[in-house]
């Protein structure tokens, strides 16, 4: 019987999530933004696994797998975009891509 309260798992998840979030907002390098996104996705995974463990259900892990799939697809597209961006603009600075401004 472990004595890890669910609260702690959730706090871990929150912390990771917020670290990732701050990274996404602060970093201008798109590569780092992608990495921060990975951290955030991972944090979500922690929360799922924790919840699944509390209720002894496999659903948490399944959800984690879906998140994993999502991360894989996202990274594939994201990296391809990065490559494209590097070719076209010779930089990975995300602030260059601001043509959508109103």
């Amino acid at each position, binding site marked *: 019987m472990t004595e890890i309260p669910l609260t702690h798992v959730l706090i871990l998840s929150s912390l990771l999530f917020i670290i990732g*979030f701050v990274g996404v907002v602060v970093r201008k390098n798109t590569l780092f933004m*992608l990495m921060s996104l990975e951290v955030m996705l991972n944090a979500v995974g922690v929360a799922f696994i924790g919840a699944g463990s509390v209720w002894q259900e496999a659903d948490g892990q399944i959800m*984690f797998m879906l998140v994993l799939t999502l991360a894989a*697809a996202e990274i594939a597209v994201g990296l391809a975009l990065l490559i494209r*961006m590097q070719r076209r603009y010779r930089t*990975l600075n995300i602030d260059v891509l601001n043509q959508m401004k109103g």
Partner: protein
Amino acid sequence: MSSLASIEGLFYLAATIAIVASLKVVTGKNTVHALLYLVISLLAVAVCFYLMGAPFAAGLEVIVYAGAILVLFVFAVMMFGLGIDETHNAPQSRGLSLWVGPVFLGLLLLIELIFVIGNSDLSLQLNNQIVDSKQVGMLLYGPYLLAVEISSFLLLAGLVAGYHYAKPESRGGRL
């Protein structure tokens, strides 16, 4: 206070490592170093998973996340020279002032989340029973079959999109 070797101790240690590594990822300057820190973070989380009674998830985390996705990252960085920008040219993210706003926002969010978590009377404890891969598999190919199919489509779409964007701009098509 139980010993470090106990399960709880290991969990908190892994969690601390994960957090510190993540912080290093976010604040790092060298791309490759940051990627390696990310690997460490993922591995630490994998340990947490294992300790939380999800060995299958932990395995997936190590194999797929750290093994496949991060390797993809490293490949991309190495092959297409994506790391150059950050390490050599761009003197960015240096000023502390840039960090103030987001960190403040992040802290605010954190406080809120902790407040929410603390307020809800979740006195639940984690169960040390292992949820093994068999259960996961039964469920995955039972009620979640549709989700699996959809994920496969998602991956296919990722594949197609990745191929489309990454191929050389032969006809001058726009981004």
